Structure formats: C-alpha cells, structure tokens
C-alpha cells in the first residue's frame, strides 16, 4: 500500500527525507546533449563526477566549455557598456530552453559581430575625443595668449625687453638681436607650481612664464574624467634655453601648441579651430547615437542570451562528468534521483531522445550501492524556511526523522513565550501579512539588499511568530506594557475592609486572596488578571509563574525529542538501541524532571493561599531528594506520607540508569561479535567438501549482522568511549538543558520590563503634561516612542528572542535524537544555476 502512494506522486512527506535510488544512465552519444538539457530543466537528478582525477583541460568537452566562456566574456563586455550608458535591460522573465549545439555557432557569430562593432565605435570615439581635446586646448591658448600680448602692449612703461616680447616689431638695440622666442601650451593645473620652480632653477631665472587658468574642466579622452588645466606661455632667448624649456615641458607632460606670432594670424587660426570644433561635435554626437542604437538593440536580448549561454555551459560541464564506454558510442553516468520521480525522469529522457532525433532510447538502470544517499526534502514556499533553519545546523542523515515539521509549531511557540506582547505581536503580524499579500510583486522586483531579502524569505515564519506572540501577549495580558480588563477583574477590595481612612493613611495595602471579600474565588477566565499590572509584587508573582511553565514546556520538548529517537531506532531496526539507550534515557528524564513537573502541578492544584507559609519549595525539595535529606523543622506535617519512599525509589532508578546507559550496549555488541566469530570459525572448521554448506556459513555470518553492513573488526575501545561520551552528554545535558529553558522566563521578563521602561520614560512624560500643552507634547513624543518601539523592541528584542529560540531548538531539542550527518541533494537544475548566477551579476 505504501509503495503505491509514493509512486503516484503528489507532495512528499516532510517527516522523513525522500527515498533515493542510485541509477546508471546510458545515453546515446547524439542524444546526450538533448537528454542532459531536459534533465536540467527537470532538476531532479544529481550527477556524480565519474572523472574526478581528470584535469579540467583534459576533459572531453573542454573546447565547448571554452567557447561558452568566450561568449560569456563578450556578453559581460556588452553588459558593461550597456550599464555605462544607463540603458535599462529588459527582463521578460522568459526561460528559453538550452539551444542545440548548432545554434551555438550562430550565437557566437552574433556576439562576435556585436563585440567588434562596439570596439570599433569605442576606438573611433576615443580618437575623436582626443582630437576634440587638442582643438579645445588650442582654442583656449589662442584666446588667452591674446591677453598676455595685450597686457604687454598697454603698459607703456616697460623696458625695452618687454616691448620686444611682443614680437610685433623687432627693435634692434645696440646691434644685438634681442628677439625672444616663446612656446605656448597647456598643463594640468596642479602641476603649475613645481613646473614654475623647475623652470626657474633650470634656466637660472632667464625665462619668463605667464599662466592663466582654463575655467571649464576638460574631458580626458581615455578615462572620461574631468580635469582642470591652465594655459601657459614661456618667453626665452636663444636656442639652448629653448631646448631646455622644451625638455622640461615634456617631463611635466605639458602639451605644446604652435602659436602664431602675429595677431592677425592668431585670429585666423582661431576661426579655423572653431569651425573644426563644430564639425567634430557633430561627428561625435553621431558616433554616440550609433553606439546608443547598437546598445539598445542588444539590451533587448541580452538577458535571454545570458540564460542560453549559461545553460549550454552547464550542460557541457555535466557532460564532462560522464564516461565514454568501450564502444565509444554511449555515454555512461551515475546519478542519484528520488524514487518517487523515476517516471518523470524516464519521460524527460524520452523527450530528449525524440528532440535529438536519435533512434536508440536512453536507459535508466537502478543500482545497488553502499554509499549513503543524499537527503532530499520536498518543501514548498511555506515549509522552506523551516527546513532551512534545520539544515543550517546540520543536514539530516538519510531517512532520519526530520525536525522541520515540528519546528513549524514549536519555533513560533517558544518565540512567543519570550516575546509575549500583544501590541508588538500585532505589528509583527501586520508587517508579515503585508509581505505575504504583496509577495508576487516583490518577487518580481528582485531586490539586491541582503537584509531585506533575509526578512522577505522569512515572511511565513514572521507571520507565525507574530500570530503566536499576539496570543501570548493576551495570555500575559500585556499590550504595549498595559493590561486590559475584558472580563472584569476578580480582585475586589470592599469598602468594609478598605475604608476611606485606611486608604488615605496607608501608602501600600495588601489584598488577601484567602477571604471572600478581596478575591472573588474564581480566577480570571483568560490570561493574567489585569489587577496585577498595578501591583507592587507583580514581578515576583510573574517570575514564579513563568519559571514553572518554562520548565514544563522545556521538559515536554525534550521528552518529545527522546520519543523521536525511538522512532529513528524503530525505522532503522536498531533494537539494541531501543533497549540500551531509549529506555534508560526515558526513565532518567522522567524520574527527575517528570517527577518535578508532577510536583509543580501538585503545588499549583493542591496548595492554596491558606498554606502559603508552608508551601513546599520545589528546588530545595529536588536537591533534598538527591541528598536524602528530609528536614523536620518547617512544616513537617505538610510532607505527604509516601513521598519519602517514592523519592528514594526514584533515586535508585536514576542511579541505575547511568550504568545501564553506559555499559550495556558495548557489552551486547561485544558478545554478538564474539558469537559470530565463534560461529564462522566453527563453520570453517567443518569439512568444505559440501560447497553448499560453506555458502550457508557465509550467508549465516552476514545475516547475523543486523545492519546488513560489511563485517568489520569490532573496535571495542572506540565503542566504549563513544558510549561514555553519550552517557555523560545525556545525563549532564538533561539537567543543564532543563535549566537552559529558563531563558524563556528571563527573556519574557526583559521584554516586559523594556516595554514598561520605554512607556514610562518616553510616553508618560507626554501624558503627564497638564492642559492644552499636553496635546502638543503627546503629538511630538508619540513619534520617538513609536520609533524606539520599532527599533529596540521589534527589531532588537525579536532578533534576540529568535536567536535564543534557535539555540533551544538546535541544542536542547535536537541533541536528543538528531544525527545530522547527511548531505544535501544537489540536483542538476537550470533554475538553480541561473538564480545563483543572477545574484552574482
């Protein structure tokens, strides 16, 4: 019956991981590509690498992989250019199939053409920009040097040399031609001071530098940066100085331009330069337009191309893992796949064979193997986050009980015990509902923000945590640190006992629950009585209550964990462990902490306020049980008659459990091993003339081993040490983990106190302002109170409670049954590959 339901499909069970089969796949060489791509679309097969020792460069399809990487490189280059121009890339959400190998050649040609075009356009643009820069600089020079010459012209009181600087008129004095030469150029503004200094030192002050800044920044053609430059002009006399000046200009990477001497020539040149600049501008803008058009056309398809190329590359990577068989016509692979989906895989293979037009069908053969299969848990969008929480600690062993389905309920529940505030729970619930209702829209947007993605992926767990916290807040009767009175408080101080004079004269009064006047006799029907919020001993009362329920829930969860270990032992047919591990564990836990819970319940039910002075202390009582110490003085009459005997009996049981857990299993294993050794040696001793009996002997020896595993020499020391560790871990762990569950009380106390302090320190200040100023103060102080509530109580406290709940699950709960020694099923799936690369890019 069970087998039929598995094969007919539907949602797998989350209780244990799926049954996996190791299969051999025989693929015809022509059909291999198509079949593997179909399996990639399906995403249910994990291929094993049959060539692990082979170098990456010696694999069969290394050329194809190299071609794919070339294509990816070209695509990345294109993408970079598209991003530089800020063109939006269309993401239609299309999922194209992996193209056939012959299509790959077309794709390569397209990408090559595009890349060449882009490179050409870029090179042209660069050359044009360089030209543009030169012309612009020249234009600036012509304009600025005009001012230098003009200045010199207007100043009449200059020396003869300065007049000669003009070069307009060559004035001859005393026979020596004092004709001064000049060079004009452009240099980076930052380099001017060292440039000037160098000129002064090298030419011994015999050159004259004038410089002025170019106001608009110029664009560097290579890097595209905007730089500030200055125009300079250097006047000197003689050839030696000229060559020196030229060398210094070269060293400082200043560009020199030929500047005509006469003003008329300069004006002509300037006009020519302006027209050339205009022409260049038009050519540049046309080049940019062309580039833009090419990129826009590419941007439409680039995402689809990326997906196609990645799929091809993934298929060839997988094909590299396969083995070529003897006849060289068939590719063999080994893989893991879930038994439930064998039908689907067969159909995918059939589709692949049909698509490639092959005649020989591909064969899927189940294999027997001794390796541990991978762990595969079928999850949907709701259960995925809980499975991830469990997997983060350790992946479950193959077909071990999966803690995830229980985590769905116990995680929000323990969280809510620590976070119990109905107001905060409501806010958390609303936020989660918003995320869930708009989830399709948010999924389409694909944000990059890691923190937001973390919150969004956990929206279902936040929803549950919020809902459970709302309930816990109503139970604790705590809404933003205030209690609400729905059913009418059961504490009613009457005017008989508490008359007006008594109230006026006393600061604190105590209400007595034992008489009928203060306390109605019937407790508040749902949650904490609202009167407790106003009492002075609220914390003492709540502490006692919260500690006890923490212990009850903690021991309950641990007991459940031990019961799950029983399920594991039964499934793996490990009867030794049931008798030697499960039984002593259960007895140990029940005798100490089960008994403690009985005492707690007894104290709650049987003892009321009239016996308050003599109520039995739970912790001291437990310690006394172990020390066999029964003190006579306080309230000895309160001890029930059989309790001493019962506790002594339980103590004996507890002490017996420890050697039971420690010794029995190694002893039984050793005896079994010795028995099999004796049997096999005795059987071998008998005559082997009957071949059948020898076979029987070997069969018998193998059957004796209950795990069906290979016979191994029994390493007694290892087993004893392992059992020792297990015993100590369990026994000490029981006690320390139970105490660890008290954090449920501690965090809930901290949360309640933080909430109260925030109200008292921030919002109460606003409410205490009298009169109409109170309106302004309430309006102003509400916002910081709200922001601090969100930041401290909703984010920080919730994160803290989440972490503590996680710890309680991972350590206190799972250490009772969970081995966690498996590895995840990692199928060959295009969706996974594309998603993971999308995060990268």
């Amino acid at each position, binding site marked *: 019956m069970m087998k039929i339901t598995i094969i007919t499909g539907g949602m797998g069970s989350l209780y244990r991981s799926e049954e996996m089969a190791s299969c051999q796949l025989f693929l015809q060489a022509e059909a291999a590509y198509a079949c593997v791509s179909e399996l990639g679309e399906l995403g249910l097969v994990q291929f094993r690498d049959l060539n692990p020792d082979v170098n990456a460069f010696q694999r069969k399809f290394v050329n194809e992989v190299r071609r794919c990487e070339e294509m990816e490189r070209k695509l990345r280059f294109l993408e970079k250019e598209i991003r530089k121009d800020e063109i939006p890339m269309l993401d239609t959400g299309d999922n194209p199939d992996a193209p056939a190998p012959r299509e790959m050649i077309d794709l390569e040609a397209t990408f090559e053409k595009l890349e060449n075009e882009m490179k050409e356009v870029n090179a042209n643009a660069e050359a044009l920009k360089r030209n543009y820069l030169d012309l612009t600089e020249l234009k600036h020079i012509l304009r600025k040097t005009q001012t230098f010459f003009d200045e010199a012209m207007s100043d009449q009181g200059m020396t003869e040399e300065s007049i000669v600087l003009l070069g307009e008129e060559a004035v001859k004095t005393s026979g020596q031609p004092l004709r001064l030469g000049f060079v004009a150029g452009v240099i980076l503004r930052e380099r001017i001071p060292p440039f000037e200094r160098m000129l002064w030192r090298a030419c011994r002050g015999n050159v004259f530098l004038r410089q002025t800044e170019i106001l608009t920044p110029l664009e560097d053609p290579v890097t595209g940066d905007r730089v500030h430059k200055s125009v300079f002009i250097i006047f000197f006399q003689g050839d030696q100085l000229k060559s020196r000046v030229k060398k210094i200009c070269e060293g400082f990477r200043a560009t020199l331009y030929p500047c005509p001497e006469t003003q008329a020539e300069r004006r002509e040149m300037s006009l020519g330069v302006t027209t050339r600049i205009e022409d260049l501008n038009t050519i540049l803008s046309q080049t940019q337009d062309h580039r833009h058009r090419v990129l826009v056309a590419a941007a439409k398809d680039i995402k689809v191309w990326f997906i196609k190329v990645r799929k091809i590359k993934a298929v060839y990577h997988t094909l590299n893992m396969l083995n070529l068989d003897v006849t060289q016509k068939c590719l063999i692979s080994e893989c893991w796949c879930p038994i439930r989906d064998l039908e689907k895989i067969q159909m995918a293979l059939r589709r692949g064979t049909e698509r490639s037009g092959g005649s020989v069908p591909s064969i899927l053969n189940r294999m027997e193997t001794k390796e541990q299969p991978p762990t595969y848990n079928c999850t949907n969008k709701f259960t995925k986050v809980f499975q991830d929480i469990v997997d983060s600690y350790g992946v479950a062993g193959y077909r071990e009980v999966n803690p995830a389905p229980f985590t769905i309920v116990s995680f929000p529940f323990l969280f809510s015990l620590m976070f119990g505030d109905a107001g905060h729970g409501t806010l958390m619930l609303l936020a989660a509902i918003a995320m869930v209702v708009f989830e399709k829209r948010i999924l389409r947007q694909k944000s990059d923000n890691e923190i937001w993605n973390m919150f969004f992926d956990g929206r279902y767990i936040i929803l549950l945590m919020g809902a459970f916290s709302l309930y816990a807040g109503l139970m604790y009767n705590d809404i933003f640190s205030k209690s609400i009175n729905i059913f009418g408080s059961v504490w009613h101080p009457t005017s008989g006992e508490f008359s007006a004079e008594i109230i*006026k004269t006393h600061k604190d009064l105590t209400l007595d629950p034992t008489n009928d006047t203060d306390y109605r006799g019937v407790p508040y029907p749902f949650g904490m009585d609202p009167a407790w*919020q106003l009492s002075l001993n609220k914390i003492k009362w709540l502490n006692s209550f919260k500690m006890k329920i923490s212990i009850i829930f903690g021991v309950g969860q641990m007991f459940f964990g031990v019961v799950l270990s029983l399920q594991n032992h039964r499934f793996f047919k490990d009867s030794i462990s049931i008798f030697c591990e499960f039984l002593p564990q259960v007895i140990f836990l029940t005798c100490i902490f089960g008994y403690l819970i009985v005492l707690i319940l007894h104290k709650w039910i049987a003892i009321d306020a009239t016996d308050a002075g003599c109520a039995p202390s739970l912790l001291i009582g437990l310690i006394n049980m172990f020390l066999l110490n029964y003190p006579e003085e306080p309230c000895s009459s309160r001890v029930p008659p059989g309790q001493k005997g019962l506790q002594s009996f339980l103590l004996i049981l507890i002490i017996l459990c420890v050697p039971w857990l420690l010794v029995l299993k190694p002893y039984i294993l050793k005896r079994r091993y010795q028995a099999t050794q004796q049997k096999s040696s005795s059987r071998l001793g008998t005559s082997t003339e009957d071949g059948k009996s020898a076979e029987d002997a070997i069969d018998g020896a193998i059957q004796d081993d209950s795990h069906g595993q290979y016979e191994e020499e029994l390493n007694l020391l290892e087993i004893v040490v392992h059992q020792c560790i297990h015993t100590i871990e369990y026994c000490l762990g029981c006690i320390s983990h139970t105490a660890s569950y008290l954090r449920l009380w501690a965090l809930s106390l901290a949360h309640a106190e933080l909430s109260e302090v925030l109200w008292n320190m921030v919002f*109460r200040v606003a409410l*205490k302002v009298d009169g109409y100023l*109170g*309106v302004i103060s*309430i*309006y102003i102080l509400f*916002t910081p109170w709200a922001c601090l509530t969100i930041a401290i109580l909703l984010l920080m406290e919730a994160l803290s409670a989440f972490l503590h709940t996680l710890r309680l699950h991972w350590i206190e709960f799972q250490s009772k049954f969970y081995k966690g020694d498996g590895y995840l099923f990692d199928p060959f799936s295009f969706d996974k590959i594309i998603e993971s690369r999308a995060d990268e890019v």
Partner: protein
Amino acid sequence: MTIPCCGPKCSGFCAFISVWGIIMLAVLGAFFYVHAPSLAEDLPINMPLWRKQDYNYNYVKDLYRKAAVNCWIAAGIYVATFILSCIMLKINLRQSNSS
C-alpha cells in the same frame, strides 16, 4: 507644491507612523474616557492639591476626561500629518514616474 520636502522613503515612513498614531491615540483616548485603572499612573495627578481636596474621586475623573480629549486632539493632528504625507508620496511618485 512641486518640490517635496522629503523623499519617498521618508514620506512613506511618516504615513505609517501617522496611521499608527491615529489608531493608537484614538483607542488610548477611549480608554482614558472610560477611566481605565491601568492608565491611572499616567495621569498628571498633583498630590498636594488632591490631598487638599480630601482625595475626591471627581478630581481624578476630571483628569481622565482631559487626558482623553488631549489624546483625541493629538489623533486629529496626526490625521492632518497623514494627509500631508500622502500628498508628499503622490508628488514623489509623480516625479519618479516622469523623470
């Protein structure tokens, strides 16, 4: 009206706080109006003045009513803030759509 005084995230946050303020202050005002004892410690009780009145309960009732009215008026101001932040949000949306 064309230049928003805060960006989209700021106005969204203001809108959220305003809604929370409206609901919470309205409910708080209602609880003050029905003389909830939980809120007794939040009242601006002037002890010497009250002692002079011989601890008359009407003094406290009056304070409760005043606190309720204060809360409701503050809730009303938050309604105005909410409308303002919605307008800012619309302006921001229009700007981001057009640019």
